């Protein structure tokens, strides 16, 4: 057992794992409009390292929907993956936009980061976030 722990620690050192430390207000003052989300996981390996902490939304000036998602790297090593926002009109039809492209995200070990996107027009009232492993790894 001891050997296994030493080996694991050595392998972390060998691969240069570095995790992030962060500091934040103990009682956040910002009032988030949290979105109750539904998660469909078809790639267990991806969700093993890229997890969605929370989703919140707001309306920016001009009535455009802005969505912010907190993504967290569960592993102690650097991970890269892609994300994409898709936008929906009230009738459920998808609305294409420049912000609907796959974007590569690099997260250090145990790092969480906010990613956000603004809807293409004011009629958009819904969204979907997609995550995809980095095929270039």
């Amino acid at each position, binding site marked *: 057992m001891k050997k296994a722990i030493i080996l694991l620690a050595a392998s972390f050192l060998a691969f240069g794992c570095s995790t992030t430390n962060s500091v934040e207000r103990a009682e956040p003052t910002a009032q988030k409009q949290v979105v109750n989300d539904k998660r469909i996981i078809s790639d267990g390996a991806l969700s093993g390292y890229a997890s969605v902490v929370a989703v919140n939304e707001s309306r*920016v000036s001009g009535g455009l929907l802005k969505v912010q998602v907190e993504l967290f790297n569960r592993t102690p090593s650097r991970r890269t993956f892609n994300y994409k926002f898709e936008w929906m009109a009230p009738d459920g039809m998808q609305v294409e936009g420049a*912000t609907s492209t796959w974007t590569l995200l690099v997260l250090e070990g145990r790092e969480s980061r906010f990613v956000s996107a603004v809807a293409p027009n004011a009629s958009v009232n819904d969204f979907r976030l997609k995550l995809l*492993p*980095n095929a270039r790894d």
Partner: protein
Amino acid sequence: MKTKLAILSSIALAVVFFGGCASQNATYVESGGSQSLLSTNKINIADWNAAAAALVNDMMASGVMNRFPEKPVRMKVSRIVNRTSEQIDTELLTKQISIALLNSGNVVTMSDDEYTQELAKQQAFMADKQMPLPKVTLTGRIVEDRESVGKKREVTYVFMLSLNHEGVGVWEGQKQLTKQSNRGSFAF
């Protein structure tokens, strides 16, 4: 003997010509998607997409267009200075941005096409009106920074955009994209 040699040589040549040089079947991948190729030699389509998406997000979230009560705002895409080592078509960036702004309903873009402009002038003249001027202009700059240490090569592209009204910048945004690659052992 000579005939046999000639036949064999012809077959060998045919094999090289038709087989050896043939590439594998091409496949479609999503433009700028997770499987599109990346290199440190140029700005790839994934880079253009990422820069455009980030700058559009930034501009839309800023609400800058709401400073202008008259909608839609007339915008002219002006000069985008290329300060990189490669020849690039800056419309790969500006077109995506102007499409996004146009689709948002906040902006109309003024055409660069000579015939379209001439027609607009004539229509304004016939209606005894002045040719409308753009309310805002979009200018920018794309800068490149290269570095290599040992076998590692790095390139950073900085995409900078400004939205200007009456000579002053009312919105500015920039997106940096950095790519690294390892040089092969026999690379020069």
